[in-house]
């Protein structure tokens, strides 16, 4: 905690809002409003909330794929003007190029991104291999995405994200499409790859979107709870569970208390959403 306070925030969102003109009615709708958030270097922040709370909007704004209609967003103290290789994004459905092998997908950003990046073809290949090994894809790197299982595709997407060397990892429900068992295994692996066992200063900074409260508590240093109509931050819950975290932690009483605390914040809206549908 001390180290986080002495370091300047990696990401700073101040009074961020996003409005858009609703198709059909032509009326102005608010996706998110008044979002204030600071993320420290090496911190793993999970954003959790019912569907329609604007959690993906916040991620897209940080990624620079969307522009806020109010407020400011800064990364490393500089305002964000558009997408950039310093903020890597992992999409929910992975967004892998279907015409490329896993290997070429992982190397896509290294090959075509950030002009002037000093990589010789040999260095690039070595770096791709390094991440193929890291995410456990060895032997499958020549396959096309459609030949891989959901879990394997997710690994390719993770390797692509990391190989490009971003400062900040932005992940939009990356485990959402997986079955429950694979999901639990990959949560542990994700924390290891993020740098859970390394000192805080050497970890990547991560913003992780999920609708799964259990997942948010298991992964995060803090959980940002959002609510709907309009999308806004309802609470920010610190997760003071020890790291490295293992499966065992789910059996811990403090874990259940945190999950219950967050659920109580979301419950009413979640029920309302079901009845409205």
């Amino acid at each position, binding site marked *: 905690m001390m180290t986080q306070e002495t370091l300047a925030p990696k990401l700073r969102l101040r009074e961020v809002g996003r409005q858009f003109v609703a198709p059909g009615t032509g009326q102005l709708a608010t996706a998110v409003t008044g979002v204030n958030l600071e993320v420290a270097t090496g911190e793993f922040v999970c954003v959790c909330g019912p569907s329609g709370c604007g959690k993906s909007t916040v991620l897209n704004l940080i*990624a*620079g*794929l969307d522009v806020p209609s109010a407020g400011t967003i800064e990364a490393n103290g500089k305002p964000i003007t*558009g*997408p*950039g*290789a310093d*903020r*890597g*994004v992992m*999409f929910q*459905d992975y*967004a892998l*190029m*279907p*015409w*490329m092998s896993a290997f070429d997908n992982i190397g*896509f*950003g290294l090959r*075509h*991104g*950030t*002009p002037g990046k000093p990589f010789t073809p040999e260095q690039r290949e070595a770096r791709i291999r390094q991440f193929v090994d890291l995410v456990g894809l060895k032997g499958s790197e020549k396959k*096309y*995405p*459609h030949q891989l299982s959901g879990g394997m595709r997710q690994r390719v997407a993770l390797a*692509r994200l990391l190989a*490009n060397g971003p400062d900040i990892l*932005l992940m939009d429900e990356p485990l959402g499409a997986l079955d429950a068992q694979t999901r639990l295994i990959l949560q542990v692996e994700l924390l290891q790859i993020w740098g859970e066992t390394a000192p805080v200063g050497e970890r990547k900074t991560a913003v992780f979107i999920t609708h799964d409260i259990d997942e948010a508590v298991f992964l995060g240093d803090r959980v940002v709870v959002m609510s709907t109509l309009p999308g806004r931050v309802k609470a920010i819950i610190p997760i003071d569970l020890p790291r490295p975290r293992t499966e065992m932690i789910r059996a811990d009483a403090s874990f259940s208390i945190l999950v219950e605390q967050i659920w109580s914040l979301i419950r009413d809206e979640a029920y309302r959403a079901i009845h409205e549908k």
Partner: protein
Amino acid sequence: MTTTTGSTASANGSRWNAVLYATLLPAILVLAWQAWAMTLPADTRAPSPARAVAAFVNLVASGELILATAQSLGRVLAGFAFALLAGVGLGVLMGSSRRIRDNLDPIVESFRPIAPMAILPIAILWFGTGTAASLSIVTYAAFFPMLLNTIHGVSRVDRKLVLAAMTMGVPRLRILTKVVVPGALPGVLLGSRLAMGVAWTAIIAAELAVGAKTGAGGTSGGIGQMMFVFFAYSIDLNGIVVCMIVVGVVALLIDRLFRVAEYWLMPWRQ
């Protein structure tokens, strides 16, 4: 053991049955045609299967048929190449930029309904009666399926892939060549197949029409011209039948070739 042999035998049997069914009706029709032709007087001009085969053998032996086919195919390939370059280039621009599409769409849509044959008078006036005239018609005919399918292919590229490339710091032009173009490849290949089909149809019609202008001994050449000469000068119906069959077989082969090309160019789609 017995069951395995039995099932392979029946699998083979069903394949042979399929071949049999596919060829039975054509065989009956050809036989009926031949039977009918044999009831006619010996000096008739009416075509018959036996005479068509004889004409085919003669035309191949003299080299005329092969030369004419090669000439027509050469024009089709050249026209197709022009259409491919123009159609894919313009299609990628129109597909990825709304402003360009809004600008060009009215022009494209007003030319599109004009049949390739309808521009023949202008083609002959501008380019004469040689290769250039028929080439321009083929290019015109092949251009539209190429363009429209490329636009469609580009519009169907997953938007997420473009966003993903943007977040990896890939510059715009690179995204166009490395994400949009390969993503649009299914559309481009479909467009190519259709374009090649209409190009082949158009070349025969164009050569026929140009032949009508130049007459026998015209320099235009090609299968269409050959058909015109058989029609207007030697009144050789058997020759015309041979040309028609060659046109059909070549079209079939081109189509099959494209299916193989699709298989090789898009290994991820199998």
